[in-house]
């Protein structure tokens, strides 16, 4: 009985039934499979989070994003006139999270790779790219460089999914993915 002490003093040497041992073995092997699956995906899989990260002063980072936006701005949109930047294919793209916006809007080409820089100007935010459903945590003071290759064209929303204060639910952003050579 589980509420009484084991009946025999030396219970460690009691035999274990086969069925139970088989289950333990299955659980152990399955654990190894799941463990090596993560390593396998690092080697052969295409969706792994980048480890490129550096410490940066939030104000310095905002300066970098502004310089980037100035250089690559192709238009403005929405009531707020938020700039849309179209970086060179294969180049760097910057986005800053701050209460309560993702800035600027990016326009990327399908099938091209970009070094997407993410950081925050103030609090922690959550970069949540929809509907593809890619979610990355964004910290102030940490510049994270993720190499992404959009594999479908369309309009993608960036939602903030880390609570960042009372306006958290209005914090949106956008990424356009266009066919190569189009847009702009």
């Amino acid at each position, binding site marked *: *009985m*589980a*509420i*009484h*002490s*084991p009946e025999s*003093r030396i219970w460690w040497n009691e*035999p*274990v*039934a086969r*069925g*139970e041992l088989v*289950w*333990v073995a*299955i*659980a*152990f092997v399955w*654990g190894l499979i*799941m*463990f090596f*699956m993560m*390593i396998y*995906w690092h080697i052969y*899989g295409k*969706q*792994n*989070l980048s*480890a490129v*990260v550096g410490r940066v002063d939030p104000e310095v980072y905002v300066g970098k994003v502004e310089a980037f936006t100035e250089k690559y701005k192709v238009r403005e949109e*929405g009531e707020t006139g938020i700039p849309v930047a179209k970086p060179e294919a294969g180049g760097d793209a910057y986005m800053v999270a701050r209460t309560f*916006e993702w800035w600027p*809007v990016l326009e990327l080409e399908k099938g091209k790779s970009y070094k997407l820089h*993410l950081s925050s100007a103030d609090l*922690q935010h959550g970069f*949540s790219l*929809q*509907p*593809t459903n*890619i*979610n*990355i*945590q964004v*910290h*102030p003071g*940490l*510049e994270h460089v*993720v*190499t*992404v*290759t959009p594999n479908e064209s369309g309009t993608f*929303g960036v*939602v*903030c*999914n*880390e609570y960042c204060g*009372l306006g*958290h*639910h*209005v914090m*949106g952003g956008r990424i356009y993915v266009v066919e190569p050579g189009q847009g702009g």
Partner: protein
Amino acid sequence: MSSVAIESRTLGAIAAKFRTCPATGLKVDLAAQALIKANAVAAVVFLAIGGIFGLMVALTRWPAVHLLSSDMFYLVLTAHGLDVLLLWIIFFEMAVLYFASAVILSSRIAAPRWAWVGFILMVIGGLMTNVAVLQGESTVMFTSYPPLKAQPHFYLGLILFAVGALIGCCVFFGTLVIAKEERTYEGSIPLVTFGALTAAIIAVFTIASGAIILIPTFLWSVGYISNIDTLTYKLVWWAMGHSSQQINVSAHVSIWYLIAAVTVGAKPLSEKVSRTAFLMYILFLQLASAHHLLVEPGLSSEWKIVNTSYMMYLAVMGSMIHGMTVPGSIEAAQRKSGFTRGAFEWLRKAPWGNPAFAGMFLSLVMFGFIGGISGVVLGTEQLNIMMHNTLYVPGHFHGTVVTGTTLAFMAVTYLVVPLIFQREIIWPKLARIQPYLFGIGAAGISMFMMGAGTLGVARRHWDLAMTDAALPYGYPPIASLMLGLNGLSAIMAATGGALYVVIVVASILFGKKVDETNIGTALGPMPQRVVRDAVTKYGNAGSWHLPGTYVLVTVFFGAFVLYYFVNWKYLSELWPMQ
């Protein structure tokens, strides 16, 4: 209890008063009994408060209802996390620790005065943090990630609560020492106590981590420290925030064994295997705090993989073992009692009308299928990219903490009320349906939130439509449906939760007193165990034959493998990233 049953023992300079439990023959230290009562009552009070907050959250998420304003929603969500995830659970766990040490070992409790000091600190701390949240200046969510800053008394309350809980753990360890020295048991401690020991060990790590990070954060909030590193905070905070849920797992697994023992007379299939499974928890379960840091910049994949996998999934192996040995021990016991026909007569004729058993078995099944499988998938480094901070996360942990832990704690309450409060459960017919109402509602909450999370819906988010955003994103319409179903499930669970609170409070206040004449019926319906000739055939290693359990674990394993690889398939369709 009749006066003859009270026995005084003077041990050294300390006098302890005992009564003998009429059901189990265990000697119950009256000081421990009072502490168990106090902690259990505090737990139920915070469950009631936190449960109401939870219902309000779900009704706000339901787009057609959208109950609260955004400010109130975030405030109430902060309070909900605090009251149920921390206060309800840990108060109840203190009761479990005292029960599993003093009562099960028939020992006096160590330092009952200190235990009361701990209890009072926990009450003061819990109230202080609640007040801070309700004042409206500490809407920082349960996690309170800096640089988001709460009022100082928000952190101070949590620190006091943690110190109180740490004292409770010390009392537990002290009681183990006393019981051993005074030889109140022979050989090794019972399995249930060993499970509680596992919970207490994890609790010490949890609380120490909490102190390490909350004390500097408190000093930061009053201005003595200028900066808290956001990533370090998160790392250490989750050593508390996630490990506290591992205390729950250890405690509720222990309760599964306890309820199985009391209601159907189940006995562990193998002490060695079950204890080794708990050992895997002790050594590795806390590492899974990394589940919350898988898409964080600044931590290496090596660190992420080793930690998130609980060291090659050895702790998952522990859970899978319990997932087999608990139903297996029930099957063995039922077969001994004569329910031997087919693979499942033992299960069909289990005491489903006993809320303790029904709650326990539902908890076992739903913890495994809903909370367990989703937890492993969510905690896989790359798969987490598709789920981090979406509603999938609260969906998953409502599967573990609500359908698993809370339901198990509710179930054991139906034994604690007659055994410790010595009252009969009032309205047994209502009590019969309570676990089903609550369990199915909670399962709905869990699964519909996971469904919405799979569609990308953000957690802790007031407005699915993002109406006031300059650049809104429109989630697919089926997300609204998911959140509506989540709201309906929450109403069902809240009804079951309210029923639980009302039954427990009414039973304690007005239930018929329990003594040796009615203890049998007070514990609820039990299987008639009369078939003696089956007794020698089952339950030991030589004649171990449990076809029903084999079927159950095979179904479980199939679902696990399938769901795991389906998610890898989804992942492979995402934008390539490196």
